[in-house]
């Protein structure tokens, strides 16, 4: 084959791969939406599940998802942002920062089932929290911590060095420099990280099912067990309770994830545009 023909063939394959990937994504989203939307209604969103979820709605699982996500962010956000600030603004590269980075990267690679096992043995059993929002939230917090640390670090690194110089030269202390010159500029990036972390928490099943439980009641306190939408979806599908409700729940999940992604990528676009302008 000539060079030109090889190239044409190779590029054809690559185009095909890209289109195929998009098509699979469209298929997954489309299938769940098409089969799920018809059974979706306000009543489904605000109703209580009956007969294990065979009938009724999914309101408690929506509450469970949101509460669990928020609790995990409440814990992971300050930890993650603090950690990122320390790594970027308060220290030089050293053995210590390498150790911390190793910890962050390793934590990011730990599979969620391991988080589930750990959350179960540590929070649920050892600290006697039982299956609860608190135990699930703490487990999820550890899981999303690397996401928040990384995105915050990246966002902080895009802040021009000149902002720091100006701030210091006008008499800022280090913390003043961070809060007035660095963080405001890095904010969109940090928020993107937090939103993506929330997305991970919404999607998660393995780490949640063994720590927050599968209770279908509305939670009363952080010590109540909850069932998230993803867990509910899993149980409906695997235990063959109701395919129809599974599709409907899946559709709600997909829409939630879509919304989260749209917000995140619009923030990223804004961030990129701002950098270009500079």
């Amino acid at each position: 084959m000539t060079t030109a023909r090889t190239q044409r063939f190779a590029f054809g394959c690559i185009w095909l791969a890209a289109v195929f990937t998009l098509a699979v994504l469209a298929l997954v989203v489309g299938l769940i939406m098409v089969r799920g939307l018809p059974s979706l209604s306000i009543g489904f969103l605000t109703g209580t599940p009956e007969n294990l979820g065979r009938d009724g709605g999914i309101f408690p699982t929506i509450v469970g998802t949101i509460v669990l996500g928020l609790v995990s962010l409440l814990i992971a956000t300050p930890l993650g942002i603090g950690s990122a600030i320390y790594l970027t603004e308060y220290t030089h590269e050293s053995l210590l920062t390498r150790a911390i980075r190793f910890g962050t990267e390793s934590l990011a690679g730990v599979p969620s089932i391991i988080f589930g096992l750990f959350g179960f043995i540590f929070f649920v059993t050892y600290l006697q929290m039982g299956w609860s929002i608190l135990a699930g939230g703490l487990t999820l917090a550890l899981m999303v911590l690397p996401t928040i640390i990384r995105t915050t670090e990246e966002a902080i690194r895009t802040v021009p060095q000149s902002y720091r110089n100006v701030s210091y030269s006008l008499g800022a202390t280090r913390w003043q420099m961070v809060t007035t010159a660095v963080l405001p500029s890095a904010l969109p990036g940090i928020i993107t990280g937090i939103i993506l972390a929330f997305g991970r928490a919404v999607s998660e099943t393995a780490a949640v099912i063994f720590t927050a439980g599968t209770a279908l009641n509305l939670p009363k306190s952080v010590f109540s067990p909850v069932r998230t939408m993803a867990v509910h979806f899993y149980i409906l599908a695997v235990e063959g309770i109701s395919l129809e409700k599974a599709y409907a729940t899946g559709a709600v999940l997909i829409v939630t994830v879509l919304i989260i992604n749209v917000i995140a990528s619009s923030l990223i676009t804004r961030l990129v545009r701002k950098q270009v302008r500079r």
Partner: protein
Amino acid sequence: MDIKIEFDHYTLAYGRDVVLNDITLPVARNAVLAVFGPAGSGKSGFLRSINRMAELESNERHQGDIRMDGVSIFAPAVRLPELRRRAAMVFAQPVALPMSIYDNVSYGLRLAGQRDRRTLDAAVERALRASTLWDEVKDRLDSPGLNLSGGQQQRLSIARALALEPEVLLLDAPTAALDPISTAKIEDMLIDLKANYTIVIVPHSIQQAARVGDAAAFFLNGMCVEYGAGNQLFVSPRDKRTEDYVTGRFG
């Protein structure tokens, strides 16, 4: 001579890199000192030593002393934020922080804990007038500083420094990134400002050094080769190296 700042056998190094070597030099009060020399001669290190910004480099070391009003700036009682408010700095690249014009100018005062709106208003207007920017921006103080042109942003940077009512202005090639008209505006402004401030400037050209300096110091390889009042360095340099440099025969 009424001395404001005094370098006393001061040596500055970043790691093994000696930036300033045994500098002894007076800076006169309410006058403009122009510090010039080729790239890497230690001019910026000189400026950054006065407000101790040099210490932000992790491997900074220094010897000797610098005194301001007779007191060592390295004395334990000296607080860095206060020192930097007394000796405010403007950089070569104009930097508008991503906030409104008003917030940019009042930034240093707010860092110092000033919250009173009327005090801030007055300081902002005074600083903008002094930096000749007031008439151009007085109607849009709330618009982002980033929207200003390069020359305006540099005068904004100067206003931001002036708002602190510093005793010393440290200008690190403040017109390097600007067009001739903006440069002329800033040079005129400097002449006005020296009545109230001690100014140390790293000019972006020898001509500028000659235009704005009441005194000049020629730096080479971290050493102060020659120091002289008025136009002496440019008209009748004593050192051969200074003469070569100002007449363009350098290197």
